[in-house]
C-alpha cells in the first residue's frame, strides 16, 4: 500500500516536471519569433532608412508646430509610419514618413511666409474707400 502511494507521488512529480519543461519550451518558442523579428528589424537596412526618415519628418513637424503651422494629419501619419516599421512594412513606412516630412516643411513655410498681417484686397479696398 505504501509502495503504491509512493509510486503515485513519483508519477505525479514526473508529470509535473515534464509539464514545466514543456511549458518552458513553448515559452522559448514563442519568444524566439519576437527576438527574430527584432533582429530582422535591426538588421534590415530598410528599417534603418525608415526610422531615419521618420525622425527627420518628426523634426519637420515640430519645427512647423513651433511657428503655429503644423497640419492636422502630420502626427497621425508619423504614428502610422512607426507602426508600419514595427510590422515590417518598410516601404509603407517610408512613404508615410516622406509625406509627413513634406507636410512639416510646407506647414513651416506657410506660417513663416505670413509673419506679417496680409489683408486680402477685397478688405483693403474698403479701408481706402471709407
Amino acid at each position, binding site marked *: 500500500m505504501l509502495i503504491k502511494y509512493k509510486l503515485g507521488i513519483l508519477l505525479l512529480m514526473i508529470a509535473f516536471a515534464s509539464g514545466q519543461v514543456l511549458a518552458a519550451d513553448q515559452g522559448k518558442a514563442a519568444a524566439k519569433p519576437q527576438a527574430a523579428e527584432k533582429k530582422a528589424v535591426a538588421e534590415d537596412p530598410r528599417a534603418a532608412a525608415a526610422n531615419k526618415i521618420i525622425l527627420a519628418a518628426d523634426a519637420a513637424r515640430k519645427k512647423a508646430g513651433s511657428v503655429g503651422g503644423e497640419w492636422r494629419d502630420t502626427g497621425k501619419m508619423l504614428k502610422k509610419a512607426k507602426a508600419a516599421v514595427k510590422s515590417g512594412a518598410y516601404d509603407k513606412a517610408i512613404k508615410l514618413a516622406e509625406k509627413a516630412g513634406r507636410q512639416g516643411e510646407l506647414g513651416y513655410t506657410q506660417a513663416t511666409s505670413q509673419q506679417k498681417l496680409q489683408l486680402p484686397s477685397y*478688405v483693403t479696398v474698403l479701408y481706402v474707400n471709407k
Partner: protein
Amino acid sequence: MKKLLLLLSVLVMVMGFSLAVHASPEEDRLVFRKFYEKRFPNVATEDFINGAYSIDKAGRENWEAIEEFPPYEPFMERGREMWEKPFANGKGYKECFPDGPGVAHKYPHWDKKQQMVMTLPLAINQCREANGEKALKYKKGSINDILSYMAFESRGQITNVVVPKNDSSALDAYEQGKKFYYTRRGQLNFSCAHCHLQNAGMNLRAEMLGPALGHTTHWPTYRSKWGTVGTLHRRFTGCNKQVRAKPFKAQGEEYRNLEYFLTYMSNGLPLNGPGARK
C-alpha cells in the same frame, strides 16, 4: 499718362495696405461691418446675430421650428442649478460674479492684472479653482451648462469689447487675434476670412457659410452635428480641423486673442445665446 495712372493705382494699393495694417480696432470694425452691409444689402445689421440664418431662408425656417423647443434648455436648467449650488467651501459663482449671471457682455475683456484676454469660460474656471473646485473642461461637458445659463441671462445685452488705449499689450493681443483671422492655415491653405468673409453666403456641400459679423453673439451653441451644446473654442477647433490645420488649445492664448478680435468686430450687436445650429 498710362504710366502715371499705373503709378497712382499702385500708390493707392500700397497706401490702402499700409492703412489697413495700421488701422485702429474701431476702423477695423467699421470696415468689417461695411463689408457685410455691401455683400448682403437686404439684411438688417442686427439680424447678423442669427448667423447663416440671416441669409439662408430655408435654413431659417428649419431653425425657427427648432427654436420652438430649444434643444439647449436642459443645459440651461442644469446651469441654473450649478449657479445656485454652493461650492464645498460654502461660496459660489455668485461671489465671483457679483453682478449676477447675466454678464456675458463683459467678456472677453483685457485683464490688466494678468496681462491677458479674459474670457467667460476662463473666468468661471478661475473662480472654481480659487474656491478649491476642479476646473471644468473647455470644450465639452458641464462648462456648457453654466455657460448656457449665463448666456441666456445675458440675452439682449450689447456686445461691447474694449481695447484699452493706454495698454499696448491689449492692442497687441487684439492684433494677434486679427492676424490669426487672416492667416492661411492647414493643408487647404484657408484662413478664417476665406470662409466667413470672402465666401460668406456660398455653399460648402449642403451648408451655407455664415457671415462672421455676429459670430460671437450666440455661444455656447447646441449643434445638431454634436448632439450637444459646445463652446466657441470647440467651434474654433472644428474650423481649424476642417482646413486640415492642427488646432490650438482651447482657452490658449491664440484662441483667446482670436475671440477678442472677433467679438470686437460684433460690437454693438445684442447677445442671443445660447444658440442652436445645424
